[in-house]
């Protein structure tokens, strides 16, 4: 069978000692990044991209390292949710609802073990589903011409924008700002410099890594200066960790159901891991009913959101790898990884670079087992790391950002630009303007314009060409629905009260 020969190829690449070491390092760093409040999967991966790139790793190695960090962060987020009632990152928000009550009852160890296993089940099933689904979607994607791609990009902006903010105008504005920034620099088709104001530094355009690190990582420092890091880890206690086998077995259907729902939520553009954990928690709460005791510290209440968000993390890789369209902030960052490595995601990736795709999938499978080991028997190490005060952590993050960007370009201009993006990120977060669409705009702007120009040249300037195929029309309808529907759903889907999160991206 195709799948097995592909996986064999993948494992032959991923099972080298060097790749395994990178996967272990990535998992370890990722769990720390996920666990620390103020650092989530997107800004954690963001600060590591420039450094990985300057180390000169090859494409597979860099991808294995950074996706291990991505998966690791998804596992790690639950640790501070359970122990501190502070989500380590946004997808782990729902885990606080039952995880923290369990910890208060002195069952922190049980909560960590069950949620760790749930994370493993969700991520493992999602990775298998990714291996099964992605090649089919890639085959459909071959039918996409420039008109369809243009519609697809619009869909990505519409749904991501629709989900990301409470105000549609602000979400759309964020997308337009990102696109506007992407167009700065030399136009490759005509050779004219656009919007550079004669500044030579700008003629190459603005590096998306500079924008990502600024918006996601540097802005976090400003938030912490404002709040003086009130949400810090003090007085964490964790007793002996044992495995509550019977209780874990009682959550088996919850884990399986949540994995399926989470994966689907992840595949949908714009949904991402936060929605995955939200949907699975609400679903399980509904199934269990009043006597289920959700919210008072039950095992199913930590198993559902953790299986859900980890499955969504795997699902989000499907549109990103097959179509080159990320579904969430973190996958946007992973798209940036691919683009930095000169790998163009999309259907051709499966045909041209099977080594990269299947090596990555095999590495993800391996990473899951590594993460299970780290997050269940070795969870105490990470609890110790949670004690790092923000007054040490955030300056550290800033300095790593500076070194990363500086070693990429060696220019102070990019560093100043990064700081300005940091200020922009702070102001936007204050004003409830989502920053993820800005990143998406910067990442996709060039291709979006190219596809539009290509489509117009093919059709001789006929605008109706954009709506000429059934696939394109379907995508346009989905885009309009994805943008408009959240306005109406917002009233119906009221979120339950939960602690403030300090991370706005997932």
């Amino acid at each position: 069978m195709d799948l097995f020969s592909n996986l064999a190829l993948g494992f032959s690449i991923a099972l080298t000692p060097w790749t395994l070491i990178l996967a272990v390092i990535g998992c370890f760093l990722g769990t720390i990044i996920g666990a620390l409040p103020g650092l989530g999967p997107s800004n954690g991966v963001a600060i590591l991209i420039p450094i990985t790139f300057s180390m000169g790793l090859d494409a597979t190695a860099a991808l294995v390292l950074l996706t291990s960090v991505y998966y690791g962060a998804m596992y790690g987020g639950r640790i501070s949710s359970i122990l501190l009632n502070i989500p380590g990152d946004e997808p782990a928000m729902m885990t606080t609802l039952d995880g923290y009550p369990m910890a208060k009852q002195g069952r922190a160890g049980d909560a960590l073990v069950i949620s760790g296993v749930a994370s493993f089940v969700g991520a493992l099933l999602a990775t298998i589903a990714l291996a099964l689904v992605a090649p089919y979607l890639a085959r459909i994607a071959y039918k996409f011409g420039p008109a369809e791609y243009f519609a697809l990009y619009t869909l990505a902006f519409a749904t991501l924008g629709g989900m990301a903010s409470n105000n549609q105008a602000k979400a759309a504005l964020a997308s337009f700002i990102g696109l506007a920034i992407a167009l700065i620099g030399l136009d490759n088709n005509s050779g004219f410099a656009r919007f550079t104001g004669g500044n030579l530094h700008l003629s190459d355009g603005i590096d998306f890594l500079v924008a990502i690190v600024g918006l996601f990582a540097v802005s976090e420092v400003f938030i912490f200066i404002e709040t003086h890091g009130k949400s810090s880890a003090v007085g964490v206690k964790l007793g002996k960790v044992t495995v509550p086998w019977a209780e874990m077995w009682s959550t088996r259907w919850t884990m399986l159901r949540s994995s399926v729902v989470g994966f689907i939520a992840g595949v949908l553009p714009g949904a991402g891991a936060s929605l995955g954990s939200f949907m699975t928690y609400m679903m399980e709460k509904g199934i269990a009913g009043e006597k289920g005791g959700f919210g008072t510290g039950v095992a199913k209440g930590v198993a559902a959101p953790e299986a859900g968000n980890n499955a969504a993390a795997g699902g989000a890789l499907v549109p990103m790898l097959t179509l080159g369209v990320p579904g969430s902030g973190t996958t946007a960052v992973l798209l940036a990884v691919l683009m930095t490595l000169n790998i163009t995601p999309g259907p051709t990736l499966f045909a041209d670079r099977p080594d990269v795709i299947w090596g990555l999938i095999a590495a993800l499978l391996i990473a899951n087992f590594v993460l299970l080991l780290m997050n269940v028997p070795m969870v105490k190490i990470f609890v110790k790391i949670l004690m790092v005060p923000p007054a040490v952590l955030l300056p550290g993050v800033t300095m790593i950002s500076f070194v990363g960007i500086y070693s990429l370009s060696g220019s102070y201009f990019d560093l100043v630009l990064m700081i300005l993006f940091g200020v922009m990120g702070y102001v936007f977060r204050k004003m409830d303007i989502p920053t993820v669409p800005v990143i998406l705009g910067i990442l996709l702007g060039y291709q979006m314009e190219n596809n539009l120009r290509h489509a117009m040249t093919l059709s001789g300037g006929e605008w109706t060409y954009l709506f000429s195929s059934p696939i394109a029309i379907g995508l346009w309808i989905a885009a309009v629905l994805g943008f408009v529907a959240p306005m109406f759903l917002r009233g119906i889907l009221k979120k339950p009260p939960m602690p403030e999160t300090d991370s706005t991206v997932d």
Partner: protein
Amino acid sequence: MIRTDRIFGVVVILVALAYIASAYNLPPGNVFDKLGPKAFPIVIGIGMAICAAVMVLRPDAEPDWPGQKTLLSLAFATAMLIGYAYALKPMGFLAPTAIAAAVLSYQISPKRVPAILTGLGLSIGLFIIFKYALGLSLFALPRSLTG
């Protein structure tokens, strides 16, 4: 009362107009590139202006801005980081990083001794990791000193 969203909206409209004007001066398309370099940016500029106009007409509730003292310290942090960006090349890695990290640490948690220790620790620790473990090319001291 003038609200943040209104001011921001007006600023964005002005930027969008400048953006459109700048795109307008680009050459039109030709047979090989029907749309040319100007059409898409103009669409983006118009989109920006429309969204900003909605913000002016229907502003959200005022964001929870911090007090003047915090705003000043944020401005100071920004200025300090820009200074750090310019100092990194001529001054070497160690001294500017120690100072910048210590200042940030003090701003998050105003305790003098831990802040200084954080600055020193991060500067030396990160230098060792980056230079020797990851092999990035960094210079510890000003190059004029080491030759």
